[in-house]
């Protein structure tokens, strides 16, 4: 089994900020827009380097979405940044019409996603966003796993022609992917090869999955870990091949059980390779205040719970 080393700790939103700056240097059409959350979205460096390409929209997210669509019609590549709830649920209709149906080249930068936002509580802990964005025809949905991958995913999103939903988070988490590995939109990354069970994870849950796989190895179980960094379009071939090989699949995500990655993969496998499955997610519940670690444990989403759920999937073979 491949051994992953934690090379440091950083928030994935800082990876976005670093990627945005790189993308801005590479393409003068790249713009950054925010609704009064420049600092939280780590847009400071971009705004300092390109003040004329940073557009403050004030606390008016609906307008920001429309402005971004208009900017895209003039050939710009606008990134709109806010907290996950405020760039999805709050403006779903605006995204649907102006970005989705209009197929404008807008990049939606969604920070503080999932329960690991922590102390702010359920109003801000968005666990419905993947379902909402997945349901929009033509929308690319990316949920990278660490600082390095978020930086590279941001650079890739800027180069891609079309709407992109880029999801990342607030807490400082392990860095474990290579620093300069170009991000391939639509690819599921095989983090660890195994034969007994497949653990499919996305976003922050990938590191939890890797830790779970290490624990399982100590119990003599050889787990394959897949990082679904792009949820849409889904790399169905890699997932189906893994399911056929191991015969048991667990899906782990920081999202509501409805409409997330688990349901998506269950649908793919039901059609192509029916496989026993278990699921780790936020169920159909609201979050609450707490530290990220406390919340992951309390909602049954940490490495220990993943390892147990992997074993449960294997017993269904």
């Amino acid at each position, binding site marked *: 089994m491949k051994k992953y080393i934690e090379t440091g700790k950083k928030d994935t939103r800082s990876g976005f900020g670093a990627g945005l700056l790189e993308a801005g240097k590479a393409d003068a059409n790249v*713009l950054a827009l925010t609704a009064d959350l420049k600092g939280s979205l780590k847009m400071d460096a971009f705004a300092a380097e390109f003040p*004329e*390409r940073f*557009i403050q*929209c*004030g606390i*008016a997210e*609906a*307008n*920001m*979405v*429309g*402005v*971004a*669509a*208009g*900017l*895209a*019609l*003039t*050939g*710009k590549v*606008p990134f709109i940044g806010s907290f996950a709830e405020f760039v999805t649920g709050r403006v779903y*209709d*605006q995204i*649907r*019409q*102006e970005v989705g*149906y*209009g*197929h*404008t080249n807008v990049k939606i930068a969604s920070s503080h996603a999932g329960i690991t936002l922590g102390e702010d509580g359920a109003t801000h802990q968005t666990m419905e966003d993947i379902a909402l964005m997945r349901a929009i025809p033509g929308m690319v949905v990316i949920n990278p796993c660490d600082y390095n991958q978020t930086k590279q995913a941001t650079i890739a999103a800027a180069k891609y022609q079309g709407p992109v939903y880029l999801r990342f988070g607030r807490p400082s988490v392990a860095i474990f992917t290579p620093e300069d590995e170009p991000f391939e939109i639509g690819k599921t990354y095989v983090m660890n090869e195994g034969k007994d069970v497949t653990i499919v994870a996305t976003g922050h849950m990938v590191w939890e999955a890797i830790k779970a796989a290490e624990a399982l190895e100590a119990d003599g179980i050889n787990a394959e870990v897949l990082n679904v960094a792009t949820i849409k379009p889904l790399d169905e071939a890699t997932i189906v091949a893994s399911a056929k090989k191991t015969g048991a699949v667990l899906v782990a995500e920081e999202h509501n059980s409805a409409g997330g990655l688990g349901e998506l993969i269950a649908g793919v496998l039901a059609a192509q390779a029916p496989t026993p499955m278990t699921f780790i997610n936020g169920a159909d519940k609201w979050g609450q205040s707490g530290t990220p670690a406390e919340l992951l444990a309390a909602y049954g989403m940490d490495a220990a719970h993943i390892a147990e759920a992997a074993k449960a999937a294997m017993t269904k073979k």
Partner: protein
Amino acid sequence: MAMALFFIKFVSWKQISLTIIMANIEKLTAIASQVRRDIVRMVSGAGSGHPGGSLGITDIMTALFFEEMKQDPATWTRSAKGQDAFILSAGHLAPVYYSVLSRAGYFPKEELGTLRKFGTRLQGHPSTEAGLPGVFQPSGSLGQGLSCAAGIALGKKIDGEDNNVYVLCGDGESEEGQIWEAGMFAVHHKLDNLIAMTDVNGQQIDGPTSEVAAIFGLEEKWAAFGWNVISADGHDFESILKAFELAKAAKGSGKPSMILFTTDMGHGVDFMAGTHKWHGKAPSAEQCEAALAQLPETLGDY
């Protein structure tokens, strides 16, 4: 002496421009009659749609596409670069939009008969899916077009382009909060290349605006938001064209312009005028004939 000369020059310029305006008004009046015929026939043929508001903004749309905008059907692309742009925020007014685009040469007039039918590019509300020439952005969900237009205007500012961006909203539509978000944004970013229009017909689908919501005092509201506010008669071509001139004269001031056009929903057809009842209802075959009898066929029906 210098002053007298200036005065003579001024008068002669006025006279020349007046002559041009008079000739243009004759042309625009003829086009508008045909556009109104198209609207009634299209909606009647489709069996559903929004004739009332379309008839109400026909004169404004005719002036915009046949006189005002710097946009050429021969070179039009969906990229808003290097040309004036127009967004129909009140997307349900698609019938007048399609008629005007077709009559201006963006696509063949025969296509007008396909409105709302399966496989058409003339969707019930404007769509970019099938690449209908002239349409920059889909609309239909209300309150969004002003934001999009502000984005195009900002893009043009960033690129140092001189073209203008036009957008048309409804007074009922202005009950949407996003309109006012866009109002603040456009002023903050000094988008004086943005020319917004509100179709003030006092009607919306559930009844007169005064009975539905407190959307009164639009002039004071937009002025308080910091806009250059112009009021005009949406059925008087001289008033419409003058309003556009006043809006363009504000370029350099940093203020976006809002033209409040007073209109009658259903204008041009006596039994459809001045009521919300034809907001979203198609005329029957007999009603269609009665309406067409009031509208001279000037450019040939599709």
